[in-house]
């Protein structure tokens, strides 16, 4: 997502904030970051192995993508920043079901290929054991149908770039009562926890490693009702009690916080989201004005100021 339209005054302020941010990052910034066609310094005498995102041109090694130079022993590669999601085993992801068929669901997780979720890799409602029957496969639509949003974990990666998911825990499964916000996957770092319950706000947050962020009303009660628990049939949505206005406002405010952070290219973590959320309250910015140029610039300035202090 690109930022809002800036007028001349905002332009100046954002440029200043960006300069500060660059200074705060220190000298390493310029060395680690390359544009397309930049020369990557390598030790020619000791030799090197060229990895993804590089190309040798006349004795020199050039970058073919914009990104961060990574070196592992002799291997030199460039990790692109703006790329599709690169999965790793164990990642928590949020995805959308695109296809139901055979014994698997296909799930769009913003990767190069749709991920596969095998029927054998899900928890059936009520925790009953799956008997491998054809009826089982016919009833797959009771669990997830096309376009459903689900949370899942990456189970395995394959040679051809495809990946398998599983939802073999109560915390994974169908998502409801909230909204999805998409950001660039590189903004989300892998943490110990990707499911967060913002208790004071009554809001649950799932930071999918693939850049899909799910913000929803806290599920009431105990573990049985964690986001996407076993009550997964499509009919469960109908007849649900409507969201309270205050909760919806908090969801919107959090969602807009994420959108602004995403537009500014700042890391998205529970902390940064909460800081943005609180800043918006402190500055008394109405929810709908959080995507305006003014808030965008103010937030960049605040971030620059904070980093300079460190």
């Amino acid at each position, binding site marked *: 997502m690109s930022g809002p339209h800036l007028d001349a005054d905002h332009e100046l302020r954002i440029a200043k904030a960006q300069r500060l941010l660059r200074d705060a990052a220190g000298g390493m910034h310029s060395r680690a970051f390359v544009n397309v066609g930049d020369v990557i310094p390598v030790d020619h005498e000791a030799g090197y192995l060229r990895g993804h995102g590089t190309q040798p041109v006349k004795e020199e090694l050039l970058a073919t993508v914009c990104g961060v130079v990574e070196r592992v022993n002799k291997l030199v590669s460039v990790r692109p920043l703006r790329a599709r999601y690169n999965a790793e085993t164990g990642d928590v992801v949020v995805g959308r079901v695109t296809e139901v068929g055979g014994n698997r669901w296909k799930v*769009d997780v913003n990767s190069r290929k749709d991920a596969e979720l095998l029927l054998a890799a899900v928890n059936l409602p009520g925790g009953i054991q799956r008997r491998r029957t054809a009826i089982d496969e016919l009833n797959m639509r009771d669990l997830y149908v096309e376009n459903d949003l689900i949370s899942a974990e990456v189970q395995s990666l394959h040679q051809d770039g495809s990946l398998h998911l599983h939802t073999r825990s109560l915390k994974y499964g169908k*998502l*409801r009562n909230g909204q999805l916000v998409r950001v660039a996957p590189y903004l989300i770092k892998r943490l110990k926890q990707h499911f967060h319950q913002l208790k004071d706000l009554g809001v649950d947050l799932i930071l999918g490693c693939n850049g899909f962020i799910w913000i929803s009303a806290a599920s009431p009660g105990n573990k049985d009702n964690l986001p996407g628990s076993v009550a997964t049939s499509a009919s469960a949505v109908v007849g649900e009690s409507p969201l309270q206005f205050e909760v*919806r406002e908090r969801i*919107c405010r959090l969602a807009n916080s994420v959108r602004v952070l995403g537009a500014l290219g700042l890391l998205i973590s529970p902390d940064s989201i909460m800081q943005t959320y609180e800043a918006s309250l402190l500055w008394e910015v109405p929810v709908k004005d959080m*995507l305006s140029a003014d808030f965008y610039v103010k937030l960049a300035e605040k971030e620059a100021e904070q980093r300079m202090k460190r």
Partner: protein
Amino acid sequence: MGALSAAEVSYIEGGIAQNLRSDGRGRLDFRNISIVTGVIPQASGSARCKVGGTDVMVSVKAELGSPPKGRPTHGGMMIKIECSPTAAPEFEGRGGEELSLELTRGLERSFLGGPNGSGAAIDLSSLRIVDGKTCWVLCIDGLVLSSDGNLLDALSIAIKAALTNTGLPKVEIVAGETGDEDPEFEVDDEESSQLDISNVPIIITLTKVGKHYFVDATAEEELQMKSAVSVAVNRKGVICGVTKRGGDGLDPSVIIDMISVAQQIALTYIPALDLQIAAAESVDPDS
């Protein structure tokens, strides 16, 4: 833009009912708009308009042509909208044609006036050069670069900005103003005159989901659209065109209600837009 899950549909509908949409807007709030004019140097006038994630570009090219049949004192105007495949993969090949046609129709209805040319956005008689022989023809071409809902409104704003930006070159008739021979001209690109854009309308689309209607729908909200009414309103608050989209029927009283709401909104919205267009015009493209 794919479809939404049942849970998202009920969430969005609930938000519209509670007057708090997914991005925090109320039902009658617009997204941030940015307007840049003079983006295409070859055109007589051009503008690019972004409404949230929607991005459209419009160029106006003034060409010498012959007046429409039966209206020798008028100039011509035509509109063509195209959807770029960069906006959505569905638009690739012939995929965008249906939507392009729908948008073109909606704009033609609002901007081109009746069959005799009266009521058009631009006074067509101001485009005349030699009666019955030569006149200016304004070709308005729109391109949808990115689609996040509310395309028709964004295009109408971009057209208004592009027309503001348009300069008609000065034409001197060298020979053949009267008589049977073909006229000859000298076109002076250095000197140009502005068009009178005081009657150019903008379109306000009210989308109806559930019992409520709202302005400036996002792509997600448009997916659930039952019906929508697009109302073209000019600066005086006069309705220049009404287009209904979507299959769901509407009660006549609701339509009248929607039209008057659109009119009210436009009366406050147009002056703000005019300021923004004027600001975009005052920015020197070379600086």
